[in-house]
C-alpha cells in the first residue's frame, strides 16, 4: 500500500516538534480569528505572509493551512453564541445554532459543531490523500492549452458560485485579470499600466490587493453599521449532546462530509459554498424539517461538517494543479512562491515531504482543534466580549505593519488604500471581490499559457477544442454558464444566496 507509506512519511514530518508547534500556532490563530467577527482568514494569512519568509517551507505552509481550517471551527462558536457569522462560511450555522443557544442548548450545539467538523476533517484528509496523487499524475501531462482551459473553467466556476449577479461576477473576474497584468510583460519586457511609477514594475502585490479588498473594506463596512449583539456567555451549560442528539446528527454529518468533500474540489468551491449546499440538502431530507430555523441539530451538524470538509479538499486543486480554487488558496500559492516552490503537479514528486507533511498535519490540526474548542470553549467565549472598537485599531496596526514590511515602502500602503476604496465601492454596488481576486492571481498565468498555446498551434485558436482534455474543460465551462443563465435556475440560485445577503 503506497498510500500508507506516504501517509507514514507525512506523519513523520507533521509530528516533528517544530511542525507540531507551527500547526498549533496556526490552529490557535485560526480559531481566534474565526471567533472574532470581522477578521477573516484571507486578511490574516495575507498579514502573516511576509513573516513566513523567515520560516522553513513546510512549517510555514502547515501554519497557514491551520489558519484556514481552524477558522471554520472558530466561526461556528460565534455563530451559535452571538448570531453573527465569525466566518462567512458559518452564516448558515447562525440559523439553527443560535436558536439552540436561545433554548439553553448552546453546549450541545457547540459540541455538535466540533464533532461534525472533526469527523469531516478526518474523512476529507483521507480524500485529499487518495485523490491528490492520481490527479497530479494526470496534471503532469498538461500542456499550455490544457492549463489555459482549466483556468477558464476555474474562473467560470468561481463566477457561477459567487453570490449575486452572474454578469457582474464575470466582469469582476475580467477586472481582476486586467489588474493582474500591471507590471513588466515577461515576453516583451514592456512595462504595462505602470503610469511611470517604478514601484509598479513588478506588478501589484497580491497581499496588498487582498488586504485592501478584504481587510480594509470589511472594517469600513463594519464601522458604517451599528449592530447590537446578544451574547450567551453566562450559560453554555452541559456540552455533551444526548443520545437522541447523536442519533439525529450522525446522518447529517455523513451527508455534510460527502457534500463538502465533493464541492471543495471544484475550482471556485470551498467552505462557504459547501455549508450553504449542505443546509439546503438537510432541510429537504430531514424528517424534522419543520424544526429548521427553530433550533434543529441537523442544521448545525450538516453545514459545520460540510464547511470543514470543503475547506480541506479545496487544497486538492492547489496541491495537484497549482491552481487556487479560492482566495485563501491563492494566498497559499503566494506563500509557496515566497519559499521558492513553483506550485503544480511536480510538488508531489519533487517535494514529497512537503506534500504529505501538509496532508498529515491537517489531521493532526483537526485533533488539536477539537481539544481547543471543547474543553477550552470558555476562553473563546471571553474573547467575544471584547468590543469591536478595541479590535479594529489593533487589526489595522498589524495590517499596516505587514504591508509596509513587504518592501519597506509606503507605496504599498497607498495601493492597499486604493484597493480599500475599490473594495468598499464593490461592497456597496453588490460586486463580489472573490472572483476578482481569483482573476488577479490567474491573469499573468493565463496570458502566458494562452501565448504559448497559440505559438505551438501556429496561431490556430481551435487548438483549445482539438485536445480532448482541454476541450472537456471548455465544454464544461460553457455548459455551466448556459445552465446557470437559464431563467429557472437563476431564480433558484438567487434564492440560495438570499440568506447570505441579509447578513
Amino acid at each position, binding site marked *: 500500500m503506497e498510500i500508507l507509506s506516504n501517509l507514514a512519511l507525512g506523519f513523520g514530518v507533521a509530528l516533528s516538534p517544530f511542525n507540531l508547534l507551527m500547526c498549533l500556532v496556526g490552529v490557535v490563530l485560526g480559531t481566534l480569528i474565526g471567533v472574532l467577527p470581522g477578521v477573516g482568514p484571507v486578511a490574516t494569512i495575507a498579514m502573516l505572509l511576509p513573516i513566513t519568509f523567515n520560516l522553513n517551507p513546510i512549517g510555514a505552509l502547515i501554519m497557514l493551512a491551520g489558519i484556514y481550517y481552524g477558522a471554520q471551527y472558530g466561526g461556528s462558536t460565534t455563530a451559535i453564541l452571538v448570531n453573527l457569522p465569525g466566518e462567512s462560511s458559518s452564516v448558515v450555522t447562525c440559523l439553527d445554532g443560535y436558536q439552540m443557544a436561545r433554548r439553553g442548548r448552546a453546549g450541545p450545539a457547540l459540541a455538535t459543531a466540533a464533532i461534525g467538523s472533526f469527523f469531516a476533517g478526518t474523512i476529507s484528509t483521507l480524500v485529499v490523500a487518495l485523490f491528490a496523487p492520481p490527479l497530479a499524475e494526470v496534471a503532469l501531462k498538461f500542456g499550455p492549452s490544457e492549463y489555459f482551459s482549466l483556468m477558464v473553467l476555474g474562473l467560470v466556476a468561481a463566477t457561477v458560485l459567487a453570490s449575486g*449577479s452572474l454578469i457582474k461576477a464575470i466582469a469582476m473576474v475580467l477586472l481582476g485579470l486586467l489588474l493582474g497584468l500591471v507590471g513588466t510583460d515577461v515576453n516583451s519586457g514592456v512595462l*504595462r499600466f505602470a503610469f511611470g511609477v517604478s514601484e509598479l514594475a513588478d506588478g501589484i502585490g497580491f497581499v496588498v490587493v487582498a488586504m485592501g479588498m478584504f481587510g480594509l473594506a470589511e*472594517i469600513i463596512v463594519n464601522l458604517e453599521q451599528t449592530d447590537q449583539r446578544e451574547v450567551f456567555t453566562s450559560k453554555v451549560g452541559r456540552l455533551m449532546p444526548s443520545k437522541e442528539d447523536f442519533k439525529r446528527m450522525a446522518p447529517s454529518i455523513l451527508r455534510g462530509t460527502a457534500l463538502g468533500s465533493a464541492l471543495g474540489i471544484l475550482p471556485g468551491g470551498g467552505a462557504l459554498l459547501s455549508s450553504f449546499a449542505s443546509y439546503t440538502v438537510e432541510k429537504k431530507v430531514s424528517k424534522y424539517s419543520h424544526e429548521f430555523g427553530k433550533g434543529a441539530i441537523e442544521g448545525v451538524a450538516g453545514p459545520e461538517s460540510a464547511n470543514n470538509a470543503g475547506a480541506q479538499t479545496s487544497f486538492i486543486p492547489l496541491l495537484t494543479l497549482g491552481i487556487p480554487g479560492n482566495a485563501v488558496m491563492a494566498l497559499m500559492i503566494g506563500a509557496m512562491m515566497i519559499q521558492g516552490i513553483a506550485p503544480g503537479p511536480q510538488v508531489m514528486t519533487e517535494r514529497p515531504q512537503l506534500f504529505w507533511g501538509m496532508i498529515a498535519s491537517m489531521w493532526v490540526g483537526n485533533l488539536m482543534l477539537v481539544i481547543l474548542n471543547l474543553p477550552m470553549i470558555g476562553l473563546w467565549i471571553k474573547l467575544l466580549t471584547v468590543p469591536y472598537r478595541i479590535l479594529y485599531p489593533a487589526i489595522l496596526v498589524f495590517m*499596516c505593519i505587514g504591508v509596509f514590511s513587504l518592501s519597506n515602502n509606503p507605496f504599498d500602503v497607498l495601493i492597499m488604500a486604493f484597493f480599500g476604496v475599490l473594495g468598499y465601492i464593490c461592497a456597496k454596488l*453588490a460586486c463580489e471581490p472573490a472572483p476578482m481576486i481569483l482573476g488577479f492571481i490567474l491573469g499573468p498565468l493565463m496570458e502566458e499559457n*494562452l501565448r504559448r498555446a497559440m505559438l505551438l498551434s501556429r496561431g490556430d485558436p481551435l487548438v483549445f477544442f482539438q485536445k480532448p482534455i482541454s476541450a472537456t474543460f471548455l465544454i464544461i465551462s460553457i455548459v455551466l454558464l448556459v445552465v446557470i443563465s437559464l431563467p429557472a435556475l437563476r431564480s433558484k440560485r438567487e434564492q440560495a444566496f438570499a440568506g447570505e445577503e441579509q447578513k
Partner: protein
Amino acid sequence: MQIKNEKDFWAGLMFMGFGLAAMIIAVGPPAFLVAAWKSMGWGNPEYGYQMGTALRMGPAYFPTVLGGLLAILGLVVFLRGLLSKLPPETMKANMSFGILDFVVGVALFAGLGYGSKVLFKSGDYGMLAASVILAVLSFLFRPKTKPLILILACGMVFAYLLKPLGLVLATILLVFVAALGGHEYKTKEVAILAVLLSLFSVVVFVHGLTLPFPIWPAFLQ
C-alpha cells in the same frame, strides 16, 4: 430617464471605465485625439503597446481583448441599471459619498501628489498632505464618510510617517486616527490601547521578527 437600479448603474459605469481605460492605454487613444494632440503643437505623443498577431501576441493583445469584454459587460450592467423592473428603493447603493466628493478626493491626491513630485522630487509629501486634508474635510463636512476616510487616512499617516517618526509614534497616531473613524470615541481608552499596541509592535515586530523599522523619531537619534 430615471435610474432604476443604482447599484447596477454605477457598477456598469465603473466596469466600462476600467475596460475602456485598459483598451485605450494598451492600443493608444483614438486617431482623432492623437491628431488633435499633434495639431496643438505638443509633438508626437507616446502611447500604446504592440498588438502582435494571434500567433505571436504582443503586450497589447490580451489586455485589449479583456478590456473590450469588460466594457461590453459594463454596458449591459449599466443598461440593466436603467431598465430594471425591481423597485428602485431596494436597489439604493447607500454610498457614504457622492460622485462629486469622489472627484474632489481623486483630484486632491492627483494634484498634491504631482505638485510634491515636481517640488520635492517625491510624491510622498503630497500623498500625506492629501490624506490629512481629506480626513479634516470628512470630519467637518461629511461625517458619514468618517469610517471610510479615516480608516484609509490612518494607514497613510502611519506609512508616510513611519520612517521620520519611528514605529512608536506612528502606531500611536494610527490608533488615534482609526478610533476617530468609529462610533464611540473615548480618549482614555484609545490612549491606553495606542500605548499597548505600540509596545506590542516594537516587541514583536522589531525585536521578535527583526523588521528594519526605526523605533524613535529620526531627530532624536
